[in-house]
């Protein structure tokens, strides 16, 4: 199956995952960096795109492209069919009830800003409270800070323990009659923690409080079912789930979207326009002004097809094994401390080394062809909570291998050697 020696710790489960075949689907993985095979462990920052998704985007641009929605000619209908076809794929991917509940945006960050502007600015006012968590990415902090400043509302923060797990009793204590929104991440990009969002959503709903979930790090790793979770809003990014940059989705319950103000103004989101008065379109078009990133969203549809074709459960099981193996190998190295040790984690491994800055770790790993991210991961409050300036983060996808983890561990040992 693969070259090189396999560890004696090889479990049975990975025999069902043909990682060599999967890797062949991703041409970018075949290259060398600094003379070494690329070991791409920066998937939480952005994932790689399989050839079929590249091809779908190319075919669109080569054969099908035109502007969408209002054309009477052949190509514009073809483009519209492809674009709306991608929306239908998204609806099925997340088990939304209605395709109108799936709004295309360029990523989770834009999605959260959309909800802040369209829902938050209309329904949240002075004295109201918004609950977020201590582990949020800046995308799920800054828009709410902006809203609170504008409206005179207050931001409340759910704390976490030293393992990087949210303190759910404290969450319960924060919910009160002034709470107008809860916004939390499904999976932490800095810590890997998977939050019990289904329970957290149910808890907020007891108080009639809607919940937005930042699912950017969840969508690549696990099935996300809007009927099961009952989230009011759910956002995710295409480029984190094997689709091109510029793609992403905001899911919102239809009854909420129908009450919401538009996001950006312009073409496509209107019904009628006069200089005296303009009326707005229904969801989802109300929230999609201007020509969208048509090719990218079609690419997202193709990525969804690809994920469905490889078997999501088996992919998740393989990733869990990668995480287990990497955690075992890396935490065994003296001087290394894992940041983010929740019981329930996605395949993200953040670590620090005594007296060695993550930036130096990252540079030395890069020399061996290993791509990790070193920094605050757009989660400065998380770094402050764990009293570290930054971490080095290895994040795994279903095309990574145990051999790659072996090289990672060996190179971390080399880093320590250099600095001793």
């Amino acid at each position: 199956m693969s070259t090189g020696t396999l560890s004696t710790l090889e479990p049975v489960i990975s025999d069902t995952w043909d990682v060599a075949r999967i890797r062949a689907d991703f041409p970018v993985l075949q290259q060398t960096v600094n003379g070494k095979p690329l070991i791409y462990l920066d998937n939480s920052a952005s994932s790689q795109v399989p050839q079929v998704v590249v091809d779908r985007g190319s075919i669109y641009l080569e054969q099908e492209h035109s502007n969408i929605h209002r054309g009477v000619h052949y190509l514009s209908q073809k483009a519209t069919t492809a674009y709306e076809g991608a929306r239908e794929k998204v609806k099925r991917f997340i088990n939304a009830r209605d395709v109108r509940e799936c709004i295309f945006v360029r990523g989770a960050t834009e999605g959260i800003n959309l909800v802040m502007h369209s829902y938050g600015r209309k329904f949240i006012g002075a004295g109201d409270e918004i609950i977020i968590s201590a582990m949020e990415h800046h995308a799920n902090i800054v828009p709410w800070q902006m809203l609170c400043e504008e409206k005179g509302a207050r931001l409340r923060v759910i704390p976490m323990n030293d393992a990087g797990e949210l303190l759910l009793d404290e969450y319960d204590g924060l919910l009160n009659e002034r709470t107008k929104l809860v916004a939390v991440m499904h999976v932490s990009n800095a810590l890997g923690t998977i939050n019990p969002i289904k329970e957290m959503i149910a808890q907020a709903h007891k108080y009639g409080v809607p919940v937005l979930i930042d699912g950017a790090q969840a969508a690549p790793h696990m099935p996300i079912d809007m009927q099961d979770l009952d989230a009011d809003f759910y956002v995710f990014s295409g480029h984190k789930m094997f689709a091109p940059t510029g793609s992403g989705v905001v899911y919102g319950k239809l009854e909420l979207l129908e009450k919401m103000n538009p996001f950006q103004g312009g073409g496509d989101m209107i019904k009628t326009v006069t200089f005296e008065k303009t009326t707005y379109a229904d969801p989802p078009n109300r929230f999609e002004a201007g020509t969208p990133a048509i090719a990218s969203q079609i690419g997202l549809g193709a990525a969804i097809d690809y994920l469905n074709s490889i078997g999501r459960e088996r992919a998740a099981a393989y990733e869990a094994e990668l995480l287990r193996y990497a955690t075992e190998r890396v935490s065994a190295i003296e001087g290394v401390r894992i940041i983010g040790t929740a019981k329930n984690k996605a395949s993200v491994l953040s670590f620090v080394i005594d007296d060695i800055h993550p930036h130096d770790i990252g540079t030395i790993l890069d020399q061996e062809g290993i791509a990790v991210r070193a920094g605050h991961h757009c989660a400065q409050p998380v770094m402050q909570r764990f009293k570290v300036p930054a971490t080095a983060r290895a994040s795994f996808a279903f095309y990574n291998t145990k051999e790659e983890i072996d090289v990672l561990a060996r190179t971390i040992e080399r880093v320590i050697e250099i600095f001793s």
Partner: protein
Amino acid sequence: MSELSELYQQVILDHNKKPRNFRKLETANHSAEGYNPLCGDQLTIYLNLEDDLVREVGFEGSGCAISKAAASMMTQAVKGKSKEQAEHLFQEFHSMVTGELNEETEENNLGNLKIFAGVREFPVRVKCATLAWHTLHAALNKEPQISTE
């Protein structure tokens, strides 16, 4: 890893482990904070400037090995120099690490600061090496805070 050994030379590793003048200066009359938001390097440079001469210099902060070593060697290089000489060294150091100055063939006063020439091969790390110098420049000119964004 031959290019790596150009970057992480023994002298640099030594200055990272035992940074010189690594203390707050009680007699400081100039100081500035420098911040590299990209990776979280953060330094404060303290100067005692008298009659246009850098009499004392100290630094505090946390950051990667390159930023710490660069700060340490910078404090050694500027102590006892005039403000003008220190500014000139800043220009030369900056030019060297951005590839504009060939420290071996062109005239310069860099001395053992030449050891940072290897940073050129690691463009992402240039800001780490220059942070201390940008901060020094800010301190000399009474600007309280800089960021290398």
